[in-house]
């Protein structure tokens, strides 16, 4: 990789997933999604609305701090949403239509664990907790997954705990629960994936430059859907790279890559 870094590739790839009618908000420790949402808004999706930390509507921050839930992100917002009741109302009614998940573990159906490694009652590692995952996985119609640690510890056959619902057990499981939407895509440090429209299993859509299909298969603890030739993830354009570096001048996005276990 010459003209861009891996983190920039991941941010750009995630950004491309957000269409113009996106109304997205972000949770804690969401440096990559925040960066990607700002990039999408600055490029192909000018009507995209990003609500920083579920509080600040359409902000124009000059940098991304150590938290994605703090006031530095709220500069220039058109609204500070004070009421948690109003926020959840919009998340439940579908007005807020997009959210990004990251988990210590993910399974083939895009379910996510951010609670414990090991048994819940005998945890090997106690993780920070699901936060709003258990809620938003059910309520928000478009879930985007991301990971900066695409390996067999993260992409597992069976979660130690299902903190957030993706496509559940696959197939029509969400419909049976009375829930609409579901995970749209998953962008990792190796590849871009989506979900087979019937089985709702993770499907390899593209591999990043320098990564082979075999690399991704080897790094994934469950069987991927692979249909035909898998193309290469387009590299970020020079304009995208420049924008990323302007929108995130301190490189907050790289915290997630550094934090890889």
């Amino acid at each position: 990789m010459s003209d861009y870094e891996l983190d920039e590739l991941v941010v750009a790839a995630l950004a491309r997933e957000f269409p113009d009618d996106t109304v997205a908000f972000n949770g804690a420790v969401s440096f990559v999604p925040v960066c990607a949402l700002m990039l999408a808004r600055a490029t192909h999706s000018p009507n995209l609305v990003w609500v920083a930390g579920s509080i600040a509507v359409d902000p124009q921050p000059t940098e991304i701090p150590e938290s994605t839930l703090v006031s530095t992100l709220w500069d220039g917002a058109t609204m500070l949403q004070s009421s948690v009741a109003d926020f959840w109302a919009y998340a439940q009614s579908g007005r807020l239509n997009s959210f990004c998940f990251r988990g210590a573990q993910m399974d083939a159906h895009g379910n996510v664990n951010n609670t414990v490694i090991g048994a819940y009652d005998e945890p090997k590692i106690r993780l920070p907790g699901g936060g709003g995952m258990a809620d938003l996985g059910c309520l928000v119609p478009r879930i985007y997954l991301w990971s900066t640690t695409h390996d067999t510890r993260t992409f597992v056959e069976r979660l130690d705990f299902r903190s957030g619902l993706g496509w559940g057990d696959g197939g029509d499981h969400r419909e049976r629960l009375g829930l609409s939407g579901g995970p749209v895509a998953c962008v990792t440090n190796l590849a871009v994936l989506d979900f087979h429209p019937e089985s709702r299993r993770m499907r390899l859509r593209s591999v990043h430059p320098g990564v082979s299909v075999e690399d991704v298969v080897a790094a994934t603890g469950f069987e991927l859907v692979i249909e035909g030739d898998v193309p290469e993830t387009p590299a970020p354009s020079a304009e995208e790279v420049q924008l990323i570096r302007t929108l995130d001048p301190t490189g907050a996005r790289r915290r997630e890559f550094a934090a890889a276990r």
Partner: protein
Amino acid sequence: MPAHEDKRVGLADAAALVPAGSTLALGGLSLNCSPMAFCRELVRAGVRDLELVAVVNGMGTDWLVGGGCVRRLLMGLTSFEGFGLAPNFRRAAQTKAIEVEEWSEHTLICALQAATAGVPYMPTRAGLGTDMLALHPHRTWEVVDERSGQRFVACGALQPDVAVVHVHEADRRGNARMHPKLVWFDTELVKAAKTVIVTAERIVETDSFRAAPEATAFPSFAVDHVVEAPRGAWPTACWPEYGYDGDFYRAYQQAARDRDAFAAFFAEHVGPLATGAPA
């Protein structure tokens, strides 16, 4: 009879309103505006056996757990975000020094709202299909509505004995506000709890509330006790007056790498580190 009831108390007297065994709801949101001076006082007072409700918190929870104050934690997320995982919380959970009851943001809020409304539960679609429900089936359970056949999660009423939140300004009657008004979870805690304690950067005259009534966050009748606590949210942020103290978060994490060093660090900045919750 006084012209107006005076709800001001000192920090130590306020902490004494949280006896062992209480259910305490802690205000704040991640790195923002937790009632940290109050948490420190609870640690120093050696309060024990709390059932702590902390929806999205970090340092406040970690102090109370480190101080050995907590028996059970009801939480959505406990994290220092970009500063890493909360070390006392993590160790205490892994050694089972505390019982961790994992909820989610919205289900916890629904449970608080059920208590506020005086109904047995609040319904929500949140949590369906997750492993969370099975952790506390006595508090959250799945229902199939008889009429519509629709599934939902019933979040059983959860009433905190005490809620503590931090604000910029309060008057002696209990009126309280932030600038700007960002109440977030705090409102739900204030509405639900039996007893409400507000810690405030400063006490102001009631007239200043009359001058800007749309800025008031909590009305006097919703607040039982007011504590003056300048920089009472430190090291979390009390934006825009002060931000979170990143240096402190980093020093805390650095100290947490070594148990003895951390005990000294914790004693200096917070209070005695309990043996039950080793760093």
